[in-house]
């Protein structure tokens, strides 16, 4: 087993390189364009060191923990051969990782404000809370459905692009009927649902499934789960906006 310190210097350097562009952009705009000093420089430096350390640990843990877990589960389900349990797992993973996602809760709160502004719901705290809660549930359901659909697609070997094209057509049609106030939030919700922990886990699951089923190519069939997870929330959120 590798010692946790092996190659640490190189990983740290990689992390610094990953973060350099954003530091340069912020420094350039603050000093050259806005021509203002950087407030609380000490805090910025300390924060940046934490970010570098965190990113290094995360990338290291990814290859030791999240990727192997996703793949081990995929292989275990493939060996077990029970479609029901595999799909139940896919749904639970999609639903469970999304329903408590902080970014989603924040966006749902904003969406409730938008709906109240537009007069779709009453401008009361209780009504807005109910609306936001329902929206979170709709998005979580949509991600659960997305992972289930994506897993079925891997099992059957359907080409991804037909399903995505169909999904796009659905989005375009729904846009014509959904209340305009919800459209921007619906389009954004697709990007918000895919968190930093979910992405590696779901990717490893897809690649693991595709490589343990005969006749599937992990490159062509293994990727694509995240694509579903960023498409279905748009449809579900617009549907939610139409129903409420």
């Amino acid at each position, binding site marked *: 087993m590798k010692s946790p310190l092996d190659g640490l210097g190189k990983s740290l350097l990689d992390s610094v390189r*990953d*973060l350099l*562009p*954003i530091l340069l*952009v912020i420094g350039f*705009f603050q000093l050259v364009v*806005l021509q*203002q000093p950087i407030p609380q420089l000490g*805090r*910025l430096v*300390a*924060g*940046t060191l*934490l970010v570098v350390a*965190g990113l*290094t*640990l*995360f*990338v*290291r*843990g*990814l290859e*030791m*923990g*999240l990727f*192997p*877990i996703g793949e*081990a*589960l995929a292989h275990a*389900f493939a060996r077990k051969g029970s479609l029901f*349990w595999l799909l139940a797992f896919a749904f*639970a993973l999609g639903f*469970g*990782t999304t329903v*408590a996602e902080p970014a989603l809760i924040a966006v749902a709160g*904003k969406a409730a404000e938008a709906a109240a502004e537009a007069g779709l719901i009453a401008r009361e705290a209780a009504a807005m809370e109910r609306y936001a809660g329902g929206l979170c549930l709709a998005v979580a359901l949509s991600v659960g459905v997305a992972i289930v659909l994506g897993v079925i697609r891997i099992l059957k070997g359907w080409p*991804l*692009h037909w399903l995505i094209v169909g999904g796009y057509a659905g*989005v*375009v049609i729904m*846009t014509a009927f959904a209340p305009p106030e919800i459209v*921007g939030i619906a*389009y*954004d919700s*697709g*990007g918000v649902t*895919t968190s*930093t922990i*979910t992405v*590696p*886990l779901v*990717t490893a699951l897809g690649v693991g499934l595709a490589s343990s089923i005969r006749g599937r*190519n992990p*490159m*062509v069939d*293994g*990727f*694509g789960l*995240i*694509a579903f997870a960023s498409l279905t929330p748009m449809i579900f959120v617009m549907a939610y906006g139409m129903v409420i």
Partner: protein
Amino acid sequence: MEFLVLVTDAVRSTLVDVLPILAVILFFQLVVIRRPLPNLRRMLQGTAYVLLGLALFLVGLEEALFPLGELMARQLTDPAFLHGVTHREGMALGWSDYYWVYLFGLLLGFSAAIAEPALIAVAIKAEVVSGGTINPWGLRIAVALGVGAGIALGTFRIVTGTPLHWYIIAAYVVVLAQTVFAPRAIIPLAYDSGGVSTSTVTVPLVTALGLGLAGTVPGRSVIIDGFGLIAFAVLFPIMTVMGYAQLGRWRARRAQR
């Protein structure tokens, strides 16, 4: 000492966020699969690294980059700054007066995507799965260019107030056309890269930019026009990743001749 409190708080909230995932995995592992996982200790150690790493990453972002990024988004969209740049006091601003905002959107989108841990993860996986034919840096730069271009166009849309869905539908048409011509093997990865690029780093910074811009441009509503930037950041990487693969194939063909 203050940092220590922040870090323990962040570890606790990261744990709460991943609790549903852990519960799902544990349930299926213990109740359905009922077989020991290989290398369990190493996996647990790796998971601990991921959680601690993500917690530190988030504390650092919230301490350092987010406040500054949000402050800058507000300052850059401030009419006083824009008037100062164009030297036209008291005159209405046209869409072309916001060029610093577009440039900021482009560079912020690009650099935030490069720092995005989820994108790093997918790039590592793509290199392994493709047997090394996909270069992780090439993929990440292609995605980051897409995010940057998308955010820049998205800020232009907020300034001009043109309807979001026309941009999105036009982008779909381009994506469909590219799907027909791009190498088959890249398509799923390209579609995935849109959702991947919008996570921990990009979403808060970009949301702050959109809300700041919609709040200061006359005639825009924060609630209706402030959203939609993320949608651009999801769609444009799909195009650039397919474009990257098309470029690679074209160069390989030319080299053969």
